[in-house]
């Protein structure tokens, strides 16, 4: 075995080295495929993250919707009495409301207003984002705002600044001044930067139709639930549904999958990534097949002078692996360099595990693409290859 590997490595490396321009060309093609696959994976991660970031970082296990709301947060409407009822369910440690809307942050002169997700949460309860800079809300009615990192970066607002928010209420644009008291980590919601306000403040400043002006009963969209024991999520879902009227509880992961467009977006990007890998298999397979066809006589000579099929196959596999590794390494480096040039507004996120899976898949496509050529090489008859057959 060692002898076979030694000879095949010798032949493979000599051939690559003496034809380095040709092999480098294939490596560059693989590098471009790598670049494309990694960017698609990063785009998928970035877009997915932009959609789910707030929910995925929640310190909660369940999301409670209005029954029959098709797990659409914007379609679900829950009165505040539901919050109290849920908090009373045994096994629930804490619960907080989440109310969603959109608003425009008025920026310094000359800059376009920044569209942001306006989330109303219960200060001090589940759903409040961790504050990395500044402080949490002072009261439940405070005219204060916490920015997520994206909103802070894009608005250039800092703790202590005043944020001017424009929303449409009835037929008029209303402007509200909110004091920035804290900045959290990335908490995007619906692919938008997010600003958090106390729920009662949210009710006051949210966009609303004229018919809603007299409605004194504030309504949230969903309730976020933290359990005493996260392992009991399944049974607590049922208990909440039994003890609280007209609600439906799901785990946070299911709530993320139910976000509008999330599944379709992820499956589209995953399909693109899979097709790119498939194209990679075809490109590499095609190159090595042509290469083997050009080397029929050489392989015939090798076999005629006593090389085993194992040596021929191992040399071919080794070449494919080396060329693929080189291509993926170059592609990874190019991706890293390119990623430095993207502005933070581009939803590209290089996640370690996603990139590792993409790289593993890329390393597999080489040998996979070369399988046919290796099979062909092993089947070459020296008699025919050397023109000695009768």
């Amino acid at each position, binding site marked *: 075995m060692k002898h076979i590997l030694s*000879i095949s490595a010798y032949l493979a490396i000599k051939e690559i*080295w003496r034809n380095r321009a040709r092999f480098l060309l294939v490596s560059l093609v693989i590098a471009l495929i790598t670049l494309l696959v990694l960017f698609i994976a990063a785009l998928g991660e970035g877009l997915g993250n932009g959609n789910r970031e707030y929910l995925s970082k929640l310190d909660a296990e369940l999301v409670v919707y209005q029954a029959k709301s098709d797990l659409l947060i914007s379609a679900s409407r829950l009165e505040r009495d539901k919050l109290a009822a849920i908090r009373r369910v045994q096994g629930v440690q804490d619960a907080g409301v989440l109310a969603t809307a959109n608003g425009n942050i008025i920026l310094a002169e000359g800059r376009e207003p920044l569209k942001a997700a306006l989330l109303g949460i219960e200060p001090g309860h589940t759903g409040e984002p961790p504050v990395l800079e500044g402080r949490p809300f002072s009261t439940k009615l405070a005219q204060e705002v916490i920015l997520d990192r994206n909103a802070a970066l894009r608005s250039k607002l800092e703790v202590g600044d005043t944020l001017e928010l424009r929303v449409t209420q009835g037929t008029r644009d209303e402007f509200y001044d909110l004091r920035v008291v804290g900045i959290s980590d990335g908490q995007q919601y619906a692919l938008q930067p997010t600003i958090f306000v106390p729920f009662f403040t949210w009710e006051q400043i949210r966009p609303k139709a004229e018919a809603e002006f007299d409605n004194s009963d504030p309504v949230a969209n969903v309730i976020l639930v933290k359990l005493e024991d996260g392992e009991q999520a399944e049974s607590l879902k049922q208990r909440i549904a039994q003890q609280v009227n007209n609600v439906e509880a799901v785990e946070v992961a299911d709530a993320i999958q139910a976000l509008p467009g999330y599944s379709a977006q992820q499956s589209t990007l995953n399909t693109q990534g899979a097709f790119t890998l498939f194209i990679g298999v075809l490109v590499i397979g095609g190159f090595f097949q042509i290469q083997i066809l050009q080397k029929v006589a050489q392989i015939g000579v090798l076999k*005629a002078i006593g090389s085993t099929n194992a040596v021929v196959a191992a040399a071919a596999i080794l070449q494919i692996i080396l060329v693929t590794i080189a291509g993926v390494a170059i592609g990874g480096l190019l991706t890293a360099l390119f990623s430095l040039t993207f502005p933070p507004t581009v939803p590209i996120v290089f996640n370690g595990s996603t990139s590792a899976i993409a790289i593993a898949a890329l390393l597999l496509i080489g040998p996979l693409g070369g399988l046919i050529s290796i099979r062909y090489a092993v089947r070459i008859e020296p008699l025919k290859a050397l023109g000695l057959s*009768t």
Partner: protein
Amino acid sequence: MSRAAQSLYSIETRSIVKTYDSDFGTIYAVNEVSLQVTAGEFVALVGPSGSGKTTMLSILASLLQPTAGQILLDGQDISQMNDAERVALRREKIGFTFQANNLLPYLSAVENVELMLRLNDQLDKAGRLRARELLARLGLGERLNNLTGQLSGGQQQRVAIARALIHNPSLVLADEPTANLDTERAFQVVETFAGLIHEQQRAGIMVTHDLRMCAFVDRVLQMQDGKLVRSYNSKKEIAGLINNKA
């Protein structure tokens, strides 16, 4: 099962038959051919196209299994060997030169020669030195590190000759080694080949169309329609054959 058999020769064939089935019935590519070559003897296999000499060479090279008959190489019956045994036999006991495409283009002249030693796991310092000396003897001392593409046709054939001899095989086979060479280089190549076979005491068999090349061999075996029809055993007979054809 022991394949050892009694033979006084390096290579001996006994009633070798190779048939092929066709729409017109069974074709005898080789028909009852028996020949013997001793160590240090260089034999030419001649005959018109389709006479069976290439098929016979392929059988001797253990690239093709005979339909019937026995082949003894150093007293060992190789006609019934399995694929793996035949590959090992080609590697260890047989040296080849072919008509064309002899060398691996991505290896230098000396690397091509050393390849036989690598395949046999015999590449050591002495082996490397031997490869260089052999190439130097063949007039390629200044071309050791040249790639195949940087060598002329004659030089490539000489590298192939060195590769065929470097691992001390019992049998050296050459298939039309001068087919792509001009007359002067062809004579040089065959003369050198013959000299080394005599000197190193190998059994050599060369298939050729060019009867002028028989001037350097010890014996000429003529084939026709798959059969050995005549043997030219003396220098006088061989010269007669060459002159007659000329």
